[in-house]
């Protein structure tokens, strides 16, 4: 017969129960996880400017606590807040329509009110049509283009005090090839305004 030894069952149980402590605290009891003074105010990005159509969803799924989507003159933008940053670890964020672009991305720095915003940009032109997409992420009040390293760096702090959400602000749109640069400038302007808005409502 194939028997299971019971020699090491007790130490195995001890190890598993030790790991169960943080799992209980983070996934069952829940930890404080908000650093924005008024997170709901992020939605006003979708109704400010007068030309926007907003769509709001709270608890989009277990991983996304707030999801805001809007349109502005044919361009669409998405604001996502989540304490599960893994969906933003890669260059292309997961499950975000508009960021499926078969082109290399690069980071451009935008200066707004003394802050340097690293913005990841895609720009691709095919058949005379340009597709431009750009996003900015904010973690612990700091603008950043990638959250992988900061998440790992702050892992211990998050383990003790609870994780803080990542805010993803992205915009993309299509236009005739000659106006691609105008699109890009417009998107940068919107992202800069979004950052200012974030500082005002969350700072």
């Amino acid at each position: 017969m194939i028997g299971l030894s019971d020699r090491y069952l007790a130490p195995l149980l001890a190890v598993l129960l030790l790991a169960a402590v943080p799992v209980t605290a983070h996934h069952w009891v829940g930890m404080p996880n908000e650093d924005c003074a008024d997170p709901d105010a992020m939605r006003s990005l979708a109704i400010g400017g007068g030309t926007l159509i907003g769509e709001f969803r709270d608890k989009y799924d277990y991983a996304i606590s707030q999801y805001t989507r809007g349109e502005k003159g044919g361009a669409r933008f998405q604001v996502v807040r989540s304490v599960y940053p893994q969906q933003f670890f890669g260059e292309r964020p997961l499950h975000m329509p508009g960021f499926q672009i078969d082109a290399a991305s690069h980071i451009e720095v935008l200066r707004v009110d003394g802050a340097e915003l690293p913005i990841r940009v895609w720009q691709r032109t095919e058949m005379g049509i340009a597709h431009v997409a750009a996003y900015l992420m904010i973690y612990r009040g700091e603008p950043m283009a990638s959250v992988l390293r900061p998440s790992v760096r702050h892992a211990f702090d998050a383990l003790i005090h609870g994780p803080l959400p990542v805010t993803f602000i992205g915009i993309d749109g299509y236009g005739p090839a000659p106006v691609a640069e105008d699109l890009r400038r417009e998107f940068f302007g919107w992202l800069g305004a979004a950052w200012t808005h974030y500082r005002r409502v969350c700072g």
Partner: protein
Amino acid sequence: MNTFTADRLGGLPDTGQPWGVQPIAGYRRPNQAASVFWRRARRKQWEFDDRDRAGGGPTAIVKRGVRDGLWAVGVGVLVAIGPHSSSKISVSAVCGALAFGATLAWRHRYPDARPRVWARPPTLFWVVLAAYAFLLSAVSSWLFGEYTHGIWWNGHGLLVPLAMALLTDRILRKDIQEAPADADATSVWGVAVVAAGCAMVAIDCGIRSQYLSLFGLLSCLPGFSLALLGPRRTRLLWLPLLLGLFLMPIPTRYALDLQLPQLISRGVVEIMGWFGFSVVRVGTAVSLPAGGFNVSEDCSGFAAFYASYAIVLVLAVYNRSRAKIALLLVAPWLLAVAVNVPRGTVLLLGANYFGMEFLGTFWHTASGIVAFWLMVLPLLLLADRATLREKLG
């Protein structure tokens, strides 16, 4: 010293037994010195099988019925919640019910007549298992979403644990036929490996990558094997343990890096051109005057491509033909393109004739499910059946 005792290692089948239980093919006696022990253990075991499995007392019949019922419920639930039975609840329920009925009929027609080889585990084992399941709750929402969201993501996820369990059972059944009768020594290193896996789970509570948690939980499995079954059997089980890596959900965004959406959209344009349609393609989006769609990362067959490699791993390990192994390694990519170009063409024609609403119908999902299995099943043609039979029985 471990706690294995001789009476927990018996159960060898033999030929010519009068109890009507089918012998396991390929059995050979391990050594003569242990023959007396084996004969006793075997007789005890087969008597149990005679009563409990093939036998006919009312208790045995009820037990068999409960066991078959549990199997059928398990398969039915798996089919119903899995992504292979459409996202419509009604269709999923019907498929689950059909799977339930089919499993019951199968178990009735072909009752499990193999000798029982797994000894009853110690009570503490169930507590350890419950603690492990509790740690799994850290990633369960994520995994459930990834495995059941649709055929577009990680449609094989629910099937992998089943494959791991079946392979483990087959390998260990084979082992007790061939292994010497001496007891396996378990290893304290198993506890160390489990501790390392648990540390990953704990750290990931802060990072919340979930990948680290899942990797930690999968790393615990070889540790459990070392501590509960011993190093020798852990070495035997390397394949099912490695197969566990396919439980890791891979984001479909890598489809673009594999050129799948790009090639499929180009293929659709090419085929439509043969039929005289003028299709406009921008990036991976294809359109006709009345409708079009984007060959997204999800729709590019990436999920089936990933699932295929789980099958490729098993088929390549139990394959003696180098040519077949080489073909197995490239076949998933070729099949992804070959299957999804016609599928994309059909969808584009549907969108053109019935409007964009066609893409929101059952047929869109159904075509994805068919494409998934058309990519996965042809791989079985490259299996080395003789080696599979020899190694797994």
